[in-house]
């Protein structure tokens, strides 16, 4: 919608409600006995009497059970027979029966929002049972306040906003792939955006997945191929989000694509890499192998097209010369593409915690090459690895005679890292320990733990099986890893808290079970999406129990580890949930929203822009002339913009300063002290 169109819409509504204001308010007031619940404490007859005399009240009744069929009929009849155009029911809470009466009056042709519910039960009769006189007085005041509110109630339109039938998925790890697949199967075109040059995420880096010890490459391969070949999915790798505009149902996302410098006719023959003189440690392989300046991250990578690392390329042009299909093109330029989508799913996964922060473990320091992380161990064990799937010490390539794994590195830590338990490390440590022990039965394999947490079907069994092959478990958090400066040998200093014995464990190889932390770059990405983050840095879900795959912003959904550390099964389950939620408004074709939105009086507006700064769902934009433009779809009707405005130019429909003042006046008792305060 253009600004002009939007403004016109607002004006139309304004004149409609002005019409409503101009028509004389005829208020019907109904006090409920609710059996004994209200009537025993509050003198409902007196309250009804009181209400009768209030201005604009044309009918004031009390009845036994307003929510019953005859009760509701009373309300309806008053509209038909007496031309009542605003209703007040004083009974239970708005959550309980507010909707009952609102629906009733809408059946009679009145807008649902012309009904005001007054709570004289939970807020009055039930809490003041011993003070009947005061309760009755209070009830009178509450009803008067309700009447005052009802007098100025305006229609609130429910609008259907048509949605763009397309979705964008950020991140092509297991969660992103799965949700992209599920969306495409529902007939929704998907744009899948991946930051790296290959898809599959961390899952492809693993050796085996628990508890079944399956090969993750095999498990994920049908999915990666399916996604790459799906007619409705457009895959963009080497791509990052530049900006996100719009609101649920209608987003506009700008994506920046870094060039691969290799065209799509690449046959993946590998000649270029073979002849490339530049050698670098492979990031994907945790530094366990060498890649070249032109490379494919790993043999089964999808897309299979090679990619050039411009930063390290020395431009010798050898690759261009040897490529049999002339696929290499150094002149390719970065591209910016804009996608119009209705829903966005964020599935950007996690990073492995960097244990260098824990100084006593000396991770990454000279002399401590044999201190590695579990991800590096996975890469060592994986088929086709540099070590030929053997476990070898990085310092001298010998098979370790003693392997010590340390749990909770960067988790459950008050001093560094994070307080939370990642919840996945015990499972993969136990899995890896068993694999290593089975490969090298003569080696000592020890896990130093605080608690072993392996819940869920099949995981206790996995833990037991590791014990049975002889993995040793020591309950204690190692304080440090010490190195003998002469021999270079490492020892893990830990107290066995079960036998209260301090130990120094010989460790030819130390494997740290590092935590799962939010991925690098989540801060700027979160800001671009206008979604909230938890204090640990992950993206915050809408409700931890009832809606873990919806973010704080409508239309943007979360899937996988970005919402909190979790394993592959949970990520896949969440991906399905996110896809279903994301698909709903797209498949329906529209979103229905009540337009309980603010209006702006441009005569009062001083163009300060303060309203935009307090709007949490980012529903207010500032036009070129300084006036605010309200995105009615994104607006959550919180009203925070109102007090921020210095002139009262912005007012929330049916919650204006004016209307609230009427309610406050009635509740507060009277008018006094006007000069002094």
């Amino acid at each position, binding site marked *: 919608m253009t600004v002009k169109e939007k403004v016109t819409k607002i004006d139309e509504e304004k004149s409609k409600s002005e019409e409503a204001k101009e028509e004389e308010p005829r208020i019907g007031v109904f006090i409920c006995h609710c059996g004994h619940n209200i009537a025993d404490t509050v003198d409902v007859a007196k309250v009804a009497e009181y209400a009768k005399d209030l201005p604009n009240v044309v009918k004031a009744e009390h009845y036994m059970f307003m929510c019953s069929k005859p009760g509701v009929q009373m309300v309806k009849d008053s509209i038909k027979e007496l031309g009542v155009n605003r209703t007040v029911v004083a009974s239970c809470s708005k959550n309980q029966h507010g909707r009952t009466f609102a629906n009733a009056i809408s059946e009679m042709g009145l807008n649902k929002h012309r009904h005001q519910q007054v709570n004289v039960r939970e807020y009055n009769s039930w809490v003041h049972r011993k003070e009947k006189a005061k309760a009755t007085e209070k009830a009178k005041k509450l009803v008067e306040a309700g009447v005052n509110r009802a007098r100025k109630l305006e229609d609130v339109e429910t609008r259907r906003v048509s949605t763009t039938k397309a979705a964008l998925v950020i991140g092509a790890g297991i969660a992103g792939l799965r949700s992209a697949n599920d969306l495409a199967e529902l007939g929704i075109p998907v744009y899948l955006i991946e930051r790296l040059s290959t898809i599959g995420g961390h899952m492809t880096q693993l050796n085996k997945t628990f508890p079944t010890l399956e090969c993750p490459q095999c498990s994920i391969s049908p999915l990666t191929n399916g996604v790459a070949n799906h007619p409705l999915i457009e895959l963009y790798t080497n791509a990052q989000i530049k900006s996100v505009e719009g609101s649920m149902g209608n987003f506009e996302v700008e994506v920046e694509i870094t060039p691969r410098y290799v065209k799509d006719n690449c046959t993946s023959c590998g000649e270029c890499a073979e002849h490339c003189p530049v050698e670098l440690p492979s990031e994907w392989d945790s530094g366990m192998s060498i890649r070249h300046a032109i490379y494919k991250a790993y043999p089964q990578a999808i897309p299979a097209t090679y990619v050039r690392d411009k930063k390290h390329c020395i431009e010798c042009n050898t690759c261009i010369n040897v490529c049999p299909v002339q696929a290499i093109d150094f002149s390719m330029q970065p591209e910016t593409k804009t996608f119009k989508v209705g829903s966005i799913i964020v599935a950007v996964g996690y990073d492995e915690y960097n244990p260098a922060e824990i100084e006593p473990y000396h991770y990454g320091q000279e002399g401590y090459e044999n201190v590695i992380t579990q991800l590096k161990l996975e890469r060592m064990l994986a088929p086709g690895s540099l070590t030929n799937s053997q476990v070898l010490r990085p310092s001298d390539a010998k098979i370790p005679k003693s392997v010590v794994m340390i749990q909770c590195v960067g988790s459950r830590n008050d001093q560094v890292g994070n307080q939370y338990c990642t919840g996945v490390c015990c499972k993969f440590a136990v899995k890896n320990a068993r694999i290593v022990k089975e490969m090298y039965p003569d080696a000592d394999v020890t896990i130093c733990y605080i608690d072993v947490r392996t819940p869920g079907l099949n995981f206790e069994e996995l833990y037991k099986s590791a014990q049975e092959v002889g993995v040793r478990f020591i309950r204690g958090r190692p304080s440090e890893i010490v190195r003998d400066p002469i021999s270079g040998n490492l020892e893990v200093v830990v107290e066995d808290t079960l036998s209260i014995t301090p130990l120094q464990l010989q460790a030819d190889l130390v494997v740290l079970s590092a935590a799962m932390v939010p991925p690098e770059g989540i801060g700027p990405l979160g800001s671009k999406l206008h979604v909230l983050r938890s204090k640990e840095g992950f993206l915050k879900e809408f409700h931890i129990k009832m809606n873990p795959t919806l973010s704080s912003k409508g239309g943007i959904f979360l899937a996988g580890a970005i919402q909190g550390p979790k394993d592959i099964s949970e990520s896949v389950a969440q991906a399905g949930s996110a896809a279903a939620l994301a698909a709903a408004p797209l498949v329906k074709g529209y979103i229905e929203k009540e337009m309980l939105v603010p209006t702006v009086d441009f005569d009062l507006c001083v163009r300060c822009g303060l309203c935009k700064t307090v709007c949490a769902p980012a529903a207010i934009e500032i036009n070129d002339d300084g006036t605010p433009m309200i995105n009615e779809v994104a607006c959550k009707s919180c*009203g925070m913009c109102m007090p921020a405005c210095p002139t009262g130019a912005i007012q929330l429909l049916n919650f204006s300063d004016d209307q609230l003042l009427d309610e406050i006046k009635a509740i507060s008792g009277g008018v006094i*002290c006007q000069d002094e305060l």
Partner: protein
Amino acid sequence: MSCENIDPEVLEKMENIVVFMCNECGQGSANTAGVARMTYNPAIRIVRVQCTGQVGPIQIMDALNNGADSVACVGCCLGACHFFNGNILSMHRIKLLKKVFKELGYSDQFVNQYTSRAAEGETAVGDFEDIVIRLADAIIEEGTIKDGC
């Protein structure tokens, strides 16, 4: 002091306490308190707002100007605001207002900010009791606003 120890004369002076409660946890906790049949001072009158972030100095002063003895905002507990940070904005506003009251020479206990939890009625009742206690202190010190303190 606790609610029971307040001088009945002082309690008599409390006629209208306006409490703005937010649509989520605020009114939720008052509801739960009602369902559990807890009791509190009938001077407490609840005004339902979308979010305590919506309550500005205008609403609060309107209440005090029109006969309220004390005003309070009850919102969701920190981190749980349905609209992200409305409860925090409200807290800042109330803090500033308290300073203004002090500058004007009034007690700063006439306006307060609380949080509550929708499932726990006792949080609402606890907040209400605190409002009454603070108001009692202010009345003892200075008298009610209505009396021109």
